[in-house]
């Protein structure tokens, strides 16, 4: 036999090569650990997720302290990570924590990300939107930013408590290596978007940041939180007008190149509209759904946004609460806020289901003299049908459908 037999070792070459590349990857494990932490930070709401996150952070802090040692860093050189969308820090918790710190001292160093000067320049446009909200003017914000040398990777609560105690320094370890926050945020978004645990408000904030990250020139005079949703709305309207909106769903799952080609083909008035759609499509998000369900959260009244931050209340329930507007109830703004806050805490504490929330809100509206809408009867629905846009060939169809219904009705009536 001239031909040589191919043995099993040759057969398994593919698998062996694949395994080797996995082992190479494992060597960059610290990096993976950090990416995993970043992902958990963006998405975690469950208790088990928090435990997992905490464990991974301690692992990282220990490994960093071992390699680089810890140091005392002035508080005014530190600020929170503006790309971390979870910002839930109830005040009483910070206070309680400050008490513990003052009695027991700080057990674990916080983890900081050093900012390279060139990174700082690039970040300014984005961070000024979310950081230093307590400072009145842009000049003040810029001055504060000039001092900043670190973002907090982990330990925001310890940092705030330390500040509350009047300390000027905090013990910290430094993460080495460059970090592209928005790239990590973008990756975390890509992998976890379709889980339900990212609140629409967090998603909306992330998306605005991601859009600015990819297309910094969009940042105009106005705040991007209001500009970007408006541009998207215009783009969706245009697509509807061009009769192309229905193609969006199909375009969601094609390659990035095909998406770009489709966008180039669609007739957009502005480059910005196209750019925004491009980012959303990249994340496989339906722009129509972002326009109607996600971006509107940015317009919620501040008290409701706060409620989200502290409780994570679902958007469907918030929309019910939103019905209690000062205008509608003929109350002062303060009274309306008060009412919403009161009912909001009832909803959270009693873990009301959406149907129960609806009843609660209906009751509140009723108490303020607003009658619930009557449900449409079958007769109302028929009266509401509009035939003026029917094409000729559709008319016969409609006529026979109505006749069929009439026959059904007659059959049900006692003779």
């Amino acid at each position, binding site marked *: 036999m001239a031909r040589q037999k191919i043995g099993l070792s040759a057969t398994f070459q593919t698998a062996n090569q694949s395994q080797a590349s996995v082992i190479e990857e494992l060597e960059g494990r610290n990096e993976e650990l950090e990416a995993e932490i970043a992902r958990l930070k963006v998405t975690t709401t469950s208790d088990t997720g928090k435990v997992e996150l905490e464990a991974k952070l301690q692992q990282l802090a220990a490994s960093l302290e071992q390699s680089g040692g810890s140091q005392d860093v002035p508080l005014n050189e530190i600020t929170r990570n503006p790309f971390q969308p979870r910002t839930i820090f109830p005040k009483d918790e910070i206070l309680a924590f400050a008490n513990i710190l003052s009695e027991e001292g700080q057990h674990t160093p916080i983890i900081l990300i050093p900012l390279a000067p060139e990174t700082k320049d690039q970040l300014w446009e984005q961070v000024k939107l979310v950081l230093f909200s307590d400072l009145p003017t842009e000049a003040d914000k810029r001055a504060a930013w000039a001092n900043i040398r670190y973002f907090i990777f982990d330990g925001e609560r310890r940092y705030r408590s330390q500040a509350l105690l009047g300390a000027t320094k905090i013990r910290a370890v430094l993460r080495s290596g460059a970090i592209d926050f928005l790239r990590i945020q973008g990756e975390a978004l890509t992998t976890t978007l379709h889980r339900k645990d990212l609140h629409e408000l967090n998603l909306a904030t992330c998306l605005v940041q991601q859009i600015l990250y990819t297309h910094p020139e969009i940042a105009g005079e106005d705040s991007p939180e209001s500009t970007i949703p408006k541009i998207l709305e215009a783009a969706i309207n245009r697509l509807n007008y061009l009769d192309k909106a229905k193609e969006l769903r199909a375009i969601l799952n094609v390659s990035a190149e095909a998406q770009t080609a489709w966008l180039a083909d669609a007739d957009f008035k502005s480059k910005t509209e196209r750019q925004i759609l491009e980012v959303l499509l990249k994340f496989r998000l*339906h722009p129509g759904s972002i326009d109607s369900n996600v971006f509107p959260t940015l317009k919620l009244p501040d008290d409701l946004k706060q409620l989200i931050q502290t409780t994570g209340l679902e958007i469907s329930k918030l929309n019910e609460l939103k019905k209690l507007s000062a205008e509608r109830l003929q109350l002062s703004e303060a009274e309306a806020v008060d009412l919403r806050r009161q009912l909001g805490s009832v909803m959270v504490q009693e873990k009301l289901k959406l149907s129960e929330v609806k009843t609660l809100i209906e009751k509140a509206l009723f108490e303020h003299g607003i009658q619930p809408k009557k449900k449409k009867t079958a007769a109302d629905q028929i009266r509401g049908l509009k035939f003026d846009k029917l094409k000729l060939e559709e008319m016969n169809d409609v006529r026979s459908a109505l006749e069929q219904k009439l026959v059904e009705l007659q059959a049900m009536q006692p003779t």
Partner: protein
Amino acid sequence: MKVKEQVRLSIQSNAGGSGKTTMTVHLAYAIAAKGYTVTILELDQSGSIKRFVGLPPVPKERSMAAVLDKDFHGEYPLIQIWTEHLKNVTLIQGGASLEESIQLIISTLASKYHVLAHTFADYPLDADVVIIDTPASLEPMGKVALAAATHLLIPIKPEYKDSDGASELVAWYNETVRELRLRPKPEIIGFVPTRVDLDFGPHKMILGLERQKGKVVRKSNIAEEETLPYQIHQLGYTCFPIVRESSEYINASGYGLPLQVYRPGNKAIQDLDPVVRRILAILEDK
């Protein structure tokens, strides 16, 4: 008996006829017989499991197609099987309607390959062990199963074509874990040489095993590195002892029963014991 963490075991191979479904039903019976609750999910559009459990095909709304549907809200259409023998095994059949699910997964669903994983996260299945029987094609159901699984078991028929397949499966597994960012990644419990007939030349060659005086021993004239178990060990995975080909599996399926019930005491079924022990160890360790 309540385990701490559910084991979701995906039975996968990218070769047809490697005994995935046979493995699925017999493992299910063996684990349930130890008192654990077991649910079998069939992701195979051939729907062949119905033969092994003696059931007629189900309509779409009572099949896995309903679970993978966008409108699924947690009402798993579970059917108890082998009720005369055990009370703790349930099944959701696959079948032809999965063709629609495949279309949905590859073209419409935003969650894509994560669809089953997300469904489990939103609506946990009340079972100690979930066994997922997959079709031979890895796309898309293999990925759907992998993303939802905690563990993976790979039956492999010791033949050249199937060995190629197993090698590619490992590469596919690594790639898919990376692509779908499965963390923690599903653990490969091991490979099981199945349908083994040691009177058949190629099986002897590939496994490097032969029968002497009724005992299975190493075949001395074959270089160890040219054998399937060696190659699997080299990859860092377990290669379980062989599971012999037996006509009794086929006979049992004719009655819709697992071999354990059809022929209690039949030796062939003991071949599965090491795999069962491994799964029980995972359940009890956690």
